[in-house]
């Protein structure tokens, strides 16, 4: 078999990619089903509706080790209109759990920012649980790039 130029280029690029990642232990990924199960445990079996919560994460993360993530939930944070907690899960991390935030009336707003690790390109999901038991979600795909040089 003769390789076309394009095939040869593809192969050699693959070899570089392999060389760059070959030394790193790649842990097993969770599956979207694991993430779903975790969400159901959090909501008590309710399927979250979309709306109320907005998740912000970069479309492309320059390094998966430190990915800024934030969310805000529409809520007066007083009286009956209160957010109880917000859970963030990442579908394709070794374990889907990222963090769970708990709010009170003293929170003033149901919003937070943190930094997370993403093992590869995947969906990040935020689920908000309101005091009245209703649940909402938002989802963003974050592309995790593979750097050119490890340095």
């Amino acid at each position, binding site marked *: 078999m003769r390789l076309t130029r394009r095939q040869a280029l593809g192969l050699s690029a693959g070899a570089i990619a392999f060389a760059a990642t070959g030394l790193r232990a790649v*842990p097993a990924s969770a599956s979207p089903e694991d993430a779903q199960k975790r969400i159901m445990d959090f909501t008590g079996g309710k399927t979250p509706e979309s709306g109320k919560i907005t998740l912000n994460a970069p479309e492309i993360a320059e390094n998966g080790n430190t990915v800024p993530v934030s969310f805000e939930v529409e809520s007066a944070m007083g009286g009956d209109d209160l957010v109880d907690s917000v859970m963030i899960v990442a579908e394709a991390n070794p374990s889907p759990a990222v963090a769970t*935030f*708990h709010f*009170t009336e*003293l*929170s*003033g707003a149901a919003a*937070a920012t*943190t930094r*997370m690790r993403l093992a590869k390109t995947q969906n990040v999901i935020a689920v908000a649980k309101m005091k009245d038991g209703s649940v909402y979600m938002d989802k963003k795909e974050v592309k995790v790039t593979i750097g050119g040089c490890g340095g």
Partner: protein
Amino acid sequence: MAAPKPRVKVPKTASAGDIITIKTLISHTMESGQRKDKDGKPIPRKIINKFTCEFNGQKVFECDLDPAISANPFFEFNAKVNESGAFKFTWVDDDGSVYSSESKIEVK
């Protein structure tokens, strides 16, 4: 590793009823338990698993952290202040250590 060192940023003053922004950062490697050492042995998990913020003894904000939180955990969140007082921040390590910090705010 040196003892984790918290940093917090809280406004010094506010008006009653204001919703203020708080930022916190603590030095911690957040060893995920997923990594292996040079001999191929798994490095045991050691993370900060809980962060809480209280104001005058009342809970304001809390977070349960999983190993997917980056090294040197950072949080930005809000608090509604109705009176002068002190915020207390605590970070709980897997090994049971508790790191804490306090910040006062004057509400006019």
